[in-house]
């Protein structure tokens, strides 16, 4: 196996939870929340890793930490032999590590034309471009847009077109790694396929490694090689995409996959409905942090935090009682039903 392009070891990111006097009065452990809490993962050249999880699970923060947009509170990040935790020259790093932001239109300056926007990376990094028109046209073509888009402004673009401009900008400097934050957010299903095909194509052509952040489970199988599932800022399961989609080992992954409604009315079945909601980061449960919502939690899950260990899926799972290959969870224990109404 080749050397990983990107290695994260025990990465954590913290945010202040309280401001002003409240922060001074609070005990030290309550002053900050850990949005990302000890994440380790690696990405090989040409590989696509999808980080999935619900809102607040820390997946976007993780991508931003890799790109230096939020500071690390702990852990190390190694990108192509370079340590990123001790303040590298970010401009040089970002030349090889492009970011595609979540909001396709919002991440484009409204006062610049598409032509200027896709050549902006060259200006920022001081790279001379021999013929701006030719370069812009080539980049637009690579992202599947006609040359006449060059003079348009972002508000004249549809969501899918703005996303293509985002792809063109990310590819401009021929990076080794692309961090794509929710590449399908806000796109209609009829457009989504085009964008994912485009990403798959450029990835194959240029041997790009991609870290995709998404909550869209339907697309995982078609874009990712491996997936990592996050819950409360930690990775609870990681492994090859097909193995995890068909028979996940972590009860949370299972619930997440089961919660995804299928576009098939004949597939209606008893769903596994998790009780409650994701707890706040300020009130992390003891032991395994998923145990209050877990349909198969045992007594000691509340006490002992599981480590990420090798699983039958070929990946790793952070569960002391992982699910077997044929095990399905269908219903919650009776305690999960909503409290009876009081007359």
């Amino acid at each position, binding site marked *: 196996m080749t050397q990983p392009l990107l290695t994260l070891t025990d990465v954590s990111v913290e945010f202040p939870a309280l401001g002003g006097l409240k922060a001074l009065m609070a005990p030290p452990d309550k002053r900050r929340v850990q949005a990302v809490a000890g994440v380790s993962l690696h990405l090989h050249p040409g590989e696509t890793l999808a980080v999935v999880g619900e809102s607040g699970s820390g997946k976007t923060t993780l991508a931003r930490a890799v790109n230096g947009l939020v500071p690390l509170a702990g852990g190390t990040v190694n990108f192509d032999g370079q340590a990123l935790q001790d303040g590298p020259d970010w401009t040089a790093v970002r030349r090889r590590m492009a970011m595609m932001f979540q909001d396709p239109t919002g991440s484009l300056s409204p006062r610049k034309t598409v032509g200027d926007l896709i050549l902006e990376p060259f200006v920022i990094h001081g790279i001379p471009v021999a013929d701006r028109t030719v370069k812009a046209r080539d980049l637009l073509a690579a992202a599947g847009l006609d040359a006449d888009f060059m003079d348009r402004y972002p508000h004249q673009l549809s969501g899918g077109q703005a996303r293509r401009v985002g792809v063109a900008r990310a590819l401009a400097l021929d990076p080794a790694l692309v961090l794509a934050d929710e590449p399908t957010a806000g796109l209609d299903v009829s457009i989504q*396929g085009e964008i994912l095909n485009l990403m798959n194509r450029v990835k194959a052509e240029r041997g790009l490694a991609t870290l995709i952040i998404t909550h869209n489970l339907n697309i995982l199988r078609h874009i990712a090689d491996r997936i990592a599932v996050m819950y409360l800022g930690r990775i609870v399961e990681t492994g090859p995409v097909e193995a995890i989609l068909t028979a996940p080992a972590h009860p949370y992954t299972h619930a997440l996959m089961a919660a995804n409604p299928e576009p098939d009315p004949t597939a209606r079945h008893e769903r596994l409905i998790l009780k409650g*909601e994701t707890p706040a980061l300020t009130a992390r449960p003891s032991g395994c942090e998923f145990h209050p919502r877990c349909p198969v939690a045992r007594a000691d899950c509340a006490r002992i935090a599981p480590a990420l260990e090798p699983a039958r899926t070929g990946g790793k799972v952070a569960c002391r009682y992982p699910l077997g290959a044929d095990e399905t969870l269908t219903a919650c224990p009776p305690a999960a039903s909503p409290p009876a109404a009081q007359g």
Partner: protein
Amino acid sequence: MTETLKVSGLSVSYATRQGSLQALRDVSLDVQSGQIVGVVGESGCGKSTLISALMRLLPENARVTDGRIDLDGEDILTASPRRLRAMRGREMSVVFQDPMTSLNPVLSIGRQMRDIQYREGVSTAEKDRRAAHMLGRVGLPDPEARLRGYPHELSGGMRQRVAIAMATLMHPKLLIADEPTTALDATLEVQIIALLQAIQAEIGCAILFISHHLGVIAELCDRVVVMYAGETVEEGPVADIFERPAHPYTAKLIECDPGRLKTRADTLPSIPGSLPDLTDPPSGCIFRDRCDLATEICATQRPPRRAVSPGRWSACHHAEKVTP
């Protein structure tokens, strides 16, 4: 079964600087009492305009150019403002997409739920009791205490439960759900769908469920109406439409959902092209530019709605040739 909602030939246009934008053109749909009818379509198909028209909440630059909307036999479009105020909330109500913005942040939940009952001739204590009962019904722990709480104290899923409690408090005949699960996570989405089903079974209201998410529609609805670029293109029982779509747009939309593919696809399907300019809609069929089945007739004649099997129709000249 009676028709709770009947929309016939509804056309709405907006006055814009580029000219009159025809957001809805000849839209027709029925919702029978006790049914859950899904409206599915992508951005720009006119879903939001339809909801605004149903509630008579269209912005000032909008004009209803044609058609009727009947709620339980009563014409909404000609109803007086006074009558509309009486109808909204009691006979028809809406659960909006974003529970963060649809609740008033400066009023307590109890106050907001009391306000909904302002036409009821009962005491405040009774109004509070009814509100607490409904909050308990939608699964809020400790409902009496919640009445004194404010929306910001609740999580997104709980806020959407409160919005559902408010919308169903007066047992409306028609509940319009405007993408109620889009802002929620997958594990909460199933909770809210199950809740809507339970409430519907209990109070027997009809639900018009607006969504772009085919999976949710398949899961929840009895019938489905497909919209494209301001027109209703197909309607029928949900199982039939997913199994044998009779409009090329529906067929493509279903094909595009990657959740349908159980093995890795190197090339994901998409619908090439883009929405037509609604300030100057093309002649004939609205979908013809993006359709594989289009022939000359599609360019000249607007396809009429015609029955393709009992209980369903399609607006396509080539409905019989559509393959799933």
